[in-house]
């Protein structure tokens, strides 16, 4: 009896230690990747405002029209309240937004991916988008329904970037040797990257449907692995001050952190003025963000925006 109980306890010990070890390793990696000014990162900066103001009015209108962003939102039935909020709010500013769901959902229109695996969903969604819309859109933005995106700021960021170059950008995270764009902050691919990705999707050696034998590799890492074979590397998007524009946290969390870490410059120390995404929002917060970003103005404060992107037709909360 004694020996059983002792071996049981040994087991408990081993299990705990093993788990603690895994967690520790995981945290070391994540901690390393999240450092803001990691100079091993590839940086990609937003355009300089002065340069853009030099462009003539007509040219600017032409430019803003030439940007066509197609939004892919990967949803699962359990996300239905977020889905509803996202559909009501920021996705209206995409030139086209489509929802790709893991199974058929009656309440909303979606493209059924018939799989619960996030990586398979992502692959299928990219394939679908490329096959159907390669001639109509030059930028592809993929997000989860917890993400809030400001598409106008995305377009501003992309303004001087050529979609016929292989761009793969967002909020980058380093994991071992691999640098990948976190899906939590949203993933942007140019049409060229889409082209290369789609040619690889059918090559199982380079871009397998089932990556990782024991541990499941997250879908954003898998994507980075595949794109690496095509010579496309993740780039971290930053504004002119070096702040991230794609964020994996919500504004509230940033403010909270800034209040403890940099109490002397809460708003400045928090987030970029030209932020493209925030993540981890509740459905209610989506509506509040929409109101704060697109409607609420303080009287007497005038902004000289370099570019004007028109809101979608028939939108009442733009």
């Amino acid at each position, binding site marked *: 009896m004694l020996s059983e109980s*002792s071996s*049981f306890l040994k*087991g408990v010990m081993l299990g705990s*230690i093993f788990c603690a070890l895994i*967690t520790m390793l995981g945290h070391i990696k994540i901690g390393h990747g999240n450092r803001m000014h990691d100079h091993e990162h590839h940086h990609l900066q937003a355009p300089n405002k002065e340069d853009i103001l030099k462009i003539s009015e007509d040219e600017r209108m032409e430019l803003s029209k030439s940007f066509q962003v197609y939004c892919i939102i990967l949803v699962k039935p359990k996300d239905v309240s977020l889905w509803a909020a996202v559909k009501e709010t920021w996705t209206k500013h995409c030139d086209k937004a489509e929802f790709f769901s893991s199974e058929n959902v009656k309440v909303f229109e979606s493209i059924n991916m018939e799989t619960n695996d996030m990586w398979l969903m992502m692959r299928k969604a990219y394939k679908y988008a490329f096959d159907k819309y390669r001639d109509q859109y030059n930028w592809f933005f993929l997000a989860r329904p917890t993400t809030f995106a400001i598409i106008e700021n995305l377009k501003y960021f992309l303004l001087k970037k050529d979609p016929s170059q292989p761009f793969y950008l967002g909020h980058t995270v380093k994991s071992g040797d691999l640098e990948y764009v976190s899906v939590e902050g949203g993933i942007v691919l140019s049409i060229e990257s889409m082209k290369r990705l789609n040619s690889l999707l059918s090559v199982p050696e380079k871009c397998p449907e089932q990556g990782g034998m024991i541990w499941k590799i997250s879908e954003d890492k898998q994507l980075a692995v595949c794109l690496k074979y095509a010579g496309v590397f993740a780039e971290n998007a930053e504004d002119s001050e070096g702040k991230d524009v794609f964020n994996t946290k919500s504004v509230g969390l940033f403010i909270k952190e800034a209040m*403890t870490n940099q109490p002397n410059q809460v708003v400045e120390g928090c987030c970029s003025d030209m932020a493209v995404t925030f993540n981890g929002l509740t459905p209610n917060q989506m509506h509040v963000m929409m109101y704060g970003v697109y*409607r609420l103005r303080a009287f007497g*404060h*005038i902004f000289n925006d370099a570019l004007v992107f028109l809101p979608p037709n028939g939108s009442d*909360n733009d």
Partner: protein
Amino acid sequence: MGLAIHRAAILLTCSLLLVVGPSLLPSRAPPFLAPCLPSGGDSEARAAHGWTTQRSCPAGPSRPRADPRPGGTRSPGVGTFCRSSGPPRRPSASEPEPSASAWGLPRFSPGSSEIHFREMASKSWLNFLTFLCGSAIGFVLCSQLLSILLGEQKDIQPNILHNDPHARHSDDNGQSPLEGQMNFDADVSQHKDENTDIAEYLYQKVKILCWVMTGPQNLEKKAKHVKATWAQRCNKVLFMSSEENKDFPAVGLKTREGRDQLYWKTIKAFQYVHEHYLEDADWFMKADDDTYVILDNLRWLLSKYNPEEPIYFGRRFKPYVKQGYMSGGAGYVLSKEALKRFVNAFKTDECTHSSSIEDLALGRCMEIINVEAGDSRDTTGKETFHPFVPEHHLIKGYLPKTFWYWNYNYYPPVEVSLEFLLLYKYLD
């Protein structure tokens, strides 16, 4: 609540295990461990493992190996654990590698192993099962513990609706006070290309004194954030508390704390403002410490009115008072003339502390002394003062049809969502 207890129980169990654990560490490595130890699965883990194994079994090859058991089905303990101290094997993902070093192999003492082995041989299967069971439970417990310790604490506070127009927010929403002074740079131009000429012109032209109703226990929790944010756009700001606090600073009104004291606090606060700061502003705004006021928009509204007229603005509610009254939750703003009349009315006993329901009692008094209840809606007919947090107003159908709010509004609701907002109340 149930979840918290559940978590606490797990926490307790785990901490107990961690304390008692070391004394129960195996004095000898059970031989069956090796094959069931899972591999780390990535290169880093493997590298780390190889390093520790070599360190922990330095004398591996020279150590006498335990005799193979009769039948020879099980691999001997020592050999298994120190296998990787020999020539390095190519790691392959499908083959599990032992990482025994991770759980304290150095305690292994080869001398006593043989005797123990014989004793335990008959019970080994039972031991094996209990061990497996134990490691599963240990893993689960530990992962629970870690998820509690490391998991991001999402404190989405539910905004509970009480169907009572005079219900107040609770003061104990468990927010931890933050250290240090904060500066939200409200006056510093953060946007390089922002033109604030009009806002600055109005700041000089429409002078607003804000006084914030707070309490001694809320100074660090709420009032501090008010001071760091919107209050910077007031021409003058005062924090009204029951006790004086020279450091914050907060004015002491010498009242007791509590909901039934709200009207007394308001009366005394306006008297204090009248006595000390009447000439410092044109308009006198009362707000709670959980209200957010966009003062530039308030100035836009007030710029069309003369502060010498007896008028006051806020979220206009319909019942009880003929001209309606202003909701206390959204805050209200009195013209200079209205303030003079209000303070005077208490000297002449035209108004008294008739009720502890602050907003309603003030509204009654205002009607008696002929102060007009102003229309604070914007040019499109939308309300600009809001008694609830943004999402309650923004999301259609959030406030149930039976909610008191719908019967209290003085003006019929406009279908389209809000455009100009001045005030939000009940912020977390």
